[in-house]
């Protein structure tokens, strides 16, 4: 970086992605023209990625409290009380842009980053999940992106030894130029051992640990906020390489030091590295901080203050220790062969002062950078509502079995085994429900309780109706947790949208938030952490709005845990919830009728809650043999998945109603579950449902080697399984 004359600072600010107003504000805060290092710091701190300047206004609408919420949004991750003196700490984060440029390293460092957000708070990470959206399978880049992203997630998570227990993966042409890679980590800590980023204690040492700082990823944070264009090529060197081995050592070393009481505050170095971590710690504590950049461990020679401060080298942490505890901390980090350096001290000046080779390289006030951080009320227009699709106008298939086969093998429903078998989902030996069901269940080590974990979102619904889609994403997450028998507690989110400077994109954002907020309130399912990724567009094409939801629930009694697999022949299948045959924005419409239109299924939050609570109670008291919710593809897909998982067929008898048969089978009405129960229990459950005003009906009987509907359209479970399992491996081998 060559030093430029002051006159060029304004031009440089523009290159750094700052607006004219933002630059003027930075001059005002400084009381002078900022130098290159200072300007660089302003630009990353005020980048969309770090400042949430376009989204903050909306995020405030989300409910974030509940009696069990220990710490909501604002810290590195959310913290909830799960009883027995324990807390779960979790968050989801995007690594979309880096993963598009370099899928392996982009995805890998995404996992590394979210792990650090969680263990920096004192939690041992116990599970990873990931929500992936790729472009059209036929698009020439898609296969390579899938391959690289999956290998990167596995490569990192497997090596650090945290099981990757779930996630989702869907495809749509709207993601051709912008894939979504969202990673979630869940950790466990003792409630009295949670660590925060608030610095305290003037004179306390500021300590740097982990890997050395290199020139990697400089201005990565602003890249994540820039619309992709032709200049993507030029930005390539900003890719960072992850080192999961060092991360593993860092986890162990941090947890070892956290077992003592030497740490005052700790913060990982994520986006905008040393800059955001030092501002965050000093800012939260209302203090100043002085850093000697020459003490920062460096991998390369001749690094400028600008480069050191903006580097996004991975696997690094910053912490404030109690005075006199440096030796003890150093011994631990040396044992784990990690870099350790006291790089600065806390001051009472309220300023960040950087020294470099005996000179002051930057001297700026801490508080104004966050207090006067730009916040935009960007113009927005609501998405026009799409018309409801009348099921009777959608042609019925000639052959239900053929339609089922089409759906069960379509990219969005096809088995994702090819993906999750590349993830070590069993390490730590507490994975009680592996990928492939509704929610993963991970035992709380040494206890007989478990956490139910899931990620969910249906972007095509959000695109059709952002508000309904936002509510649906929360509701489906809640439902998946319920379906394994757990009580849903809280969520994290990852808001993936296009360019917020376009009013229709802001309208999608506002709509999704509104729907999410309503659902979270109605379901007592607060948002405790999250992440926003904007500018996911290329040219005029933006991604489908995708508010990915990561949910956490508690299963107090592992013995009642439900799986989706049919357990035996001769049992009844019950359908809980009302079926109106809603085909708008459904997969049936897209994959079989070749139409992508219509309003998404309405989400009735009262029904959602009532039906879910009923199912959970039934699981606690009555023990169904299997439980599965209905989502993509509707009832018939849900039953087919239960049959494939158990290797046992079923005969469905759909009650006569005004709903056309194909709409009953493939409609994506919400708030529904399928339960396998012994015949003897049917009457009791139906009576209870009736008493509680929960729609419920027997819709079939398990048994045989085939799935049939009203005595016809038999399709063997074996064939279904082949169709369901074959697509992804064949596609990845270039054969589909």
């Amino acid at each position, binding site marked *: 970086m060559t030093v430029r004359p002051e006159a060029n600072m304004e031009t440089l600010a523009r290159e750094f992605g700052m607006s004219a107003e933002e630059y003027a504000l930075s001059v005002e805060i400084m009381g002078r023209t900022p130098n290159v290092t200072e300007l660089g710091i302003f630009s990353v701190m005020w980048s969309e990625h770090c400042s949430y300047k376009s989204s903050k206004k909306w995020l405030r609408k989300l409910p974030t409290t509940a009696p069990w919420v220990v710490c909501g949004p604002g810290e590195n991750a959310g913290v909830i009380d799960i009883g027995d003196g324990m807390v779960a700490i979790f968050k989801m984060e995007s690594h979309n842009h880096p993963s598009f440029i370099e899928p392996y390293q982009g995805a890998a460092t995404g996992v590394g980053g979210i792990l650090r957000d969680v263990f920096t708070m004192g939690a041992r990470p116990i599970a990873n999940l990931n929500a992936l959206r790729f472009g059209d399978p036929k698009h020439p880049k898609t296969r390579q992106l899938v391959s690289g992203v999956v*290998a990167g997630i*596995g*490569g990192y998570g*497997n*090596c*650090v*030894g945290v099981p990757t227990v779930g996630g989702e993966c869907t495809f749509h042409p709207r993601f051709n130029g912008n894939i979504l890679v969202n990673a979630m980590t869940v950790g466990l800590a003792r409630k009295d051992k949670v660590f925060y980023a608030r610095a305290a204690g003037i004179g306390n040492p500021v300590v740097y640990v982990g890997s050395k700082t290199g020139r990697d990823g400089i201005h990565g944070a602003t890249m994540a906020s820039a619309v992709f264009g032709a200049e993507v090529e030029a930005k390539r060197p900003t890719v960072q390489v992850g*080192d*999961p*081995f*060092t991360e*593993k*050592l860092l986890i162990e070393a941090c947890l070892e030091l956290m077992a003592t009481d030497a740490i005052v505050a700790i913060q990982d170095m994520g986006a905008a590295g040393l800059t955001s971590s030092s501002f965050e710690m000093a800012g939260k504590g209302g203090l100043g901080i002085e850093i000697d950049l020459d003490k920062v461990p460096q991998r390369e020679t001749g690094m400028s203050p600008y480069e050191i401060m903006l580097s996004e080298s991975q696997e690094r942490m910053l912490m404030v220790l109690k005075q006199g505890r440096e030796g003890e901390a150093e011994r631990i980090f040396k*044992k*784990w*062969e990690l870099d350790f350096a006291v790089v600065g001290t806390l001051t009472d000046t309220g300023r960040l002062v950087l020294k470099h080779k005996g000179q002051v390289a930057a001297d700026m006030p801490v508080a104004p950078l966050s207090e006067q951080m730009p916040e935009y009320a960007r113009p927005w227009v609501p998405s026009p509502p799409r018309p409801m699709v009348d099921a009777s106008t959608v042609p019925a298939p000639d052959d239900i079995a053929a339609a089922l086969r089409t759906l069960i093998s379509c990219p969005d429903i096809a088995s994702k085994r090819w993906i*999750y*078998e*590349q*993830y*070590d*989902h*069993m*390490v*730590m*030996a507490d*994975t*009680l429900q*592996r990928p492939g069901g509704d929610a993963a269940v991970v*035992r709380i080590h040494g206890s007989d309780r478990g956490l139910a974990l899931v990620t969910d979102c249906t972007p095509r619904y959000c695109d059709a109706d952002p508000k309904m889609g936002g509510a649906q994403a929360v509701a489906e997450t809640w439902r998946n947790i319920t379906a394994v028998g757990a009580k849903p507690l809280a969520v994290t989110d990852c808001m993936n949208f296009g360019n917020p400077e376009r009013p229709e994109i802001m309208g999608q954002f506002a709509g999704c938030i509104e729907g999410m907020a309503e659902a979270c309130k109605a379901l007592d399912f607060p948002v405790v952490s999250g992440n926003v990724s904007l500018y996911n567009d290329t040219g005029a094409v933006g991604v489908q709005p995708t508010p990915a939801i990561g949910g956490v629930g508690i299963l107090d009694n*592992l013995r009642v845990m439900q799986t989706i697999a049919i357990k035996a022949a001769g049992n009844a299948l019950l359908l809980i919830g009302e079926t109106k045959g809603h085909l708008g924005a459904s997969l049936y419409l897209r994959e079989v009728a070749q139409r992508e239109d219509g309003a998404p299924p309405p989400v009735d939050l009262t029904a959602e809650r009532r039906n879910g609570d009923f199912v959970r109670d039934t699981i606690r008291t009555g023990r169904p043999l299997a439980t599965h919710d209905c989502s993509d593809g509707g009832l018939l897909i849900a039953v087919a998945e239960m049959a494939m998982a158990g290797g046992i067929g079923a005969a469905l008898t759909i009650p006569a109603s005004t709903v056309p048969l194909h709409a009953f089978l493939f409609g994506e009405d919400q708030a529904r579950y399928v339960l396998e129960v012994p015949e003897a229990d049917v009457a009791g459950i139906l009576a209870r449902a009736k008493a509680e005003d929960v729609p419920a009906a027997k819709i079939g009987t398990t048994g045989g080697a085939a799935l049939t509907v009203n005595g016809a359209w038999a399709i063997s479970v074996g064939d279904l399984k082949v169709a369901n399992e074959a697509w992804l491996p064949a596609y990845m081998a270039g054969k589909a």
Partner: protein
Amino acid sequence: MKSAVIVFPGSNCDRDVAVALTRITGTAPAMVWHGDQAIPNVDLIVLPGGFSYGDYLRTGAIAAHSPVMGEVKTRAAKGVPVLGICNGFQILTESGLLPGALVRNVGLHFICRDVHLKVESADSMFTRRYKKGQQIKIPIAHADGNYRADAETLRRLEGEGRVAFRYVNAKGEATEQGNPNGSANNIAGIFNEKRTVLGLMPHPERAIEQLLGGSDGRAFFEGIAA
């Protein structure tokens, strides 16, 4: 039954195997940091799974030169049983305690799933609670489990009955389809000459209770405890 689990930087199944040993043998193992050259007096040394040193260079290669491995070799020579699971197996071949090498899976991917195994020999402390020919289901989780050795070594291993476990299909046949990683002769685990050292890629410690998806690994630890 006293045991020690060696912890290398990057080991990540150390706790899992310690839990299995504690629950099934009734005694918690000593956890020995790789930098320590002293291993307590024990009846079994375990090299756990994971990614020692990130599996950089070659899986198990750097760990094989860790200070503690000198002592492991000395003990092994004295007949102290040594068990290497997954990364531990890779460390055993890299350090020469077992013959051959483990290279990248034929499909090139990391694979995590249950596999069927055939117990080829019940004639060791590790396998004595199984029956020869018994078929069991145990998970694997590795990218480099493809066992390779020259023809002469393979002949010797087979001839001396030193193949402990073999990958098989659901019907118990050692076919290509039943072989998840391309290992020569479908080999999943082998003994040293005295059958006091065992290396295997599958993870018996992940199969010790029904809740985890299976308990076929229990007999493994019961044999050790017996």
